[in-house]
């Protein structure tokens, strides 16, 4: 579904991502772990076509991101770490905007907005301007907008930050259902317990380089993911 091959990105003299390769198959929830400034967000932004990269290739379902960016973007949804949405719109206007961009039919958008907003407890607030939303409500709206057009690949940067426990639990269920239906999810997180329980595969990045990746069993063995991560961090220090 998502194939990142030898991705390299520099900011001036700083090497943010160094020859990174990741392959995510349909049906997989892929966790992305690393310390602050390790290159997670840069990789995710490059994978959704926001950030130009220096070398390497990124393909989504076999389509090269640089050759056909719109084709790739039509297949994915992205939720950034800080969901800066259009404050000047109401929640419902924002969702309709996203639905129009992705060409979701009137019937489908009605059904999906109703279902997702009810699940996340946001229905009553959809007429409110986004500027009046809390961080968690914005995150919920971003989640609805991501699921609204039924993308094949969902890329999320720290999606659990700001969510209440119920919404957090629901998001995990939604992620699993999405992958069970043939979709794929690539997300970054600092919550290692969540990654350990939720992910089929995981990658650990350090100073822009991929230092370990594979199935959860391959990466952590008999230890906890936290122990492995801290051990790898310790080695690098």
């Amino acid at each position, binding site marked *: 579904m998502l194939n990142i091959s030898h991705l390299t990105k*520099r900011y001036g003299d700083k090497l943010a991502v160094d020859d990174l390769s990741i392959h995510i198959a349909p049906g997989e929830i892929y966790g992305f772990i690393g310390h602050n400034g390790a290159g997670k967000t840069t990789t995710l932004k490059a994978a959704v076509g926001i950030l*130009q990269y220096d070398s390497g290739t990124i393909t989504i379902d076999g389509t090269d991101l640089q050759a056909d960016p719109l084709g790739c973007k039509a297949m994915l949804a992205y939720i950034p770490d800080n969901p800066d949405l259009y404050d000047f*719109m109401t*929640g419902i206007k924002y969702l309709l905007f996203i639905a*129009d961009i992705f060409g979701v039919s009137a019937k489908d958008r009605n059904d999906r907005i109703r279902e997702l907003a009810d699940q996340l407890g946001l229905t009553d607030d959809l007429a409110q301007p986004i500027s009046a939303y809390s961080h968690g409500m914005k995150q919920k709206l971003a989640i609805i907008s991501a699921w609204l057009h039924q993308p094949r690949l969902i890329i999320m940067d720290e999606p659990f930050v700001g969510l209440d426990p119920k919404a957090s639990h629901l998001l995990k269920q939604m992620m699993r259902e999405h992958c069970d239906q043939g979709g794929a999810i690539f997300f970054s997180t600092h919550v290692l317990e969540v990654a350990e329980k939720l992910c089929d595969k995981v990658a650990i990045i350090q100073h822009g380089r991929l230092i370990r990746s594979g199935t959860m069993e391959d990466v952590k063995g008999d230890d906890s993911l936290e122990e492995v991560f801290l051990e790898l961090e310790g080695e690098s220090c």
Partner: protein
Amino acid sequence: MLKVLIKKQVSETLYRSFRRRNPNRTGKSGGKGKLSGKSTMIIMIVAALYLVAMFTFFSVGLCQKLMAVELDWLYYLICSGAAIIFGTFGSVFSTSFTLYMAKDNDLLLSMPIPIRDVIISRLFSVYIMSLLYSGLITIPSVVVGLILGGFSFSRLLGGLILVVLISLIVTGLSCLLGWVVAKLSQRLKNRSFLTVLIALLFFGLYYYVYFRIMDRVQDLLEAMIRIGGEIRSSAYFLYIFGLIGNGNWLGMACWTGVVLLALGLIWLILKKTFLSISTATPTPKRAVYKEKEIRQGSVSYALYRKEWYRFTTSANYMLNCGMPLLLLLGAGAFMLIKGRKMILMMSVVLAQVPGTIPVILCAVCCMLGGMVDISTPSVSLEGSTIWQLQCLPVTPWKVLRAKLMLHLSLIAFPTLFSSVVMMLLAPAGTALIQRILIPIISVLNAVFFAQYGLYLGLKLPNLSWTNEIIPIKQSAPIFFVIFTGIGLSFAFGGAYLLLGGAIGATAWMSIFAVLFFVANVALYRWLRGPGSARFAAL
């Protein structure tokens, strides 16, 4: 602590105004940021010099007349009144945002910083803004007063005190009005439109009074001695304010005391209410979502609608960038009512250069059209939300086209209305081609400024603003567009009197139509190609 906060305010203003560097870009772009900063500074200095020259000219005329009849104090009073009005208008709309709605309010208030220091640092920004705006009038008028009225130490001191007092009065008025706006904003549902409505009423009143005064200015000058005597006897306090410029110690002492007392009161109000207003969540009536039948729209329409929401939900955006639309409509309406009389007067004054009237009428439409700068801040206004458009399956050109379409759809009717009125009102002997060229050039001019504003917005973007007033009102692209508009109109209308008379109005207008057309094609090509690529890489 206070020093640190003031330093932050100053560096924020300077950084936002003169440097804009995309953190995702490296190497050369840093240099580009510096270059754009220099360009901004140059254009601001040119703009300031232009305004200073204009007010100096105004001051010389007034000073000569009034000092000849020993009404020095009335000269200073009139100049002070003009400075207070100009200064308050200049800074009032940004004051409530600077004081109460800055994005870093929560951050600062969560730190162990006395609220007093936060207010003072914010007031410092307001004061600088007030000083800059009012100083454009007070400084030239004081200098002119010193030169024409004779230099003395007391007059110099009085002049300096006048400059400071007026800037303080403007600060006080801006704070009070900003406070009212902030209080209203908390309770109103459609506060953008209501703010615009209130502001327009305010502007309307101002222009009504202004034009009434201009109508009567000749009478006033003739009756100045009588009026001066009346003010002196019935409004003695205003009289002694005017005396400050003459270095009158009583005036200086009284008014310094009054202004300081008034500022003290305003300070108490601010200190008492700052925390509650700056941390309050707006509480308009809560709307509950009710499911309605929804229709599917096209991608282009969705992008256009997004721009429309952006424009109509911001009073600042509407007022600062869209108000010239009303001026265009107003100019058309004014000419419909008083056009014949105006054309008759112009025919007498401009009889020496044939064909001037259609050129001037067209130049007026162009100048007003050039003042509409809706597309200019539209890229910067994306701010931290720009990631959305970049990760959606839409081409950058479609995004830019939506921004252009908003500008063009709003300016289309006012431009056509005013230019067609001008076309119909052109004097009897005007050639048909000259008449037709008036709306053609006006439309080409409107398209040019829509594209030129977007071009500048892409060339000098500022996506890291903390207050939307910065890209809307205080950015380099806005200055460039406004002064290009004024410059081009003067080049078109004014230069015709000097140069165009030799080649005739038809040829002159045709040259400008062709130039606008070529510039529009070039800008269109740039926006579709390099401009779109630039947007994608922001």
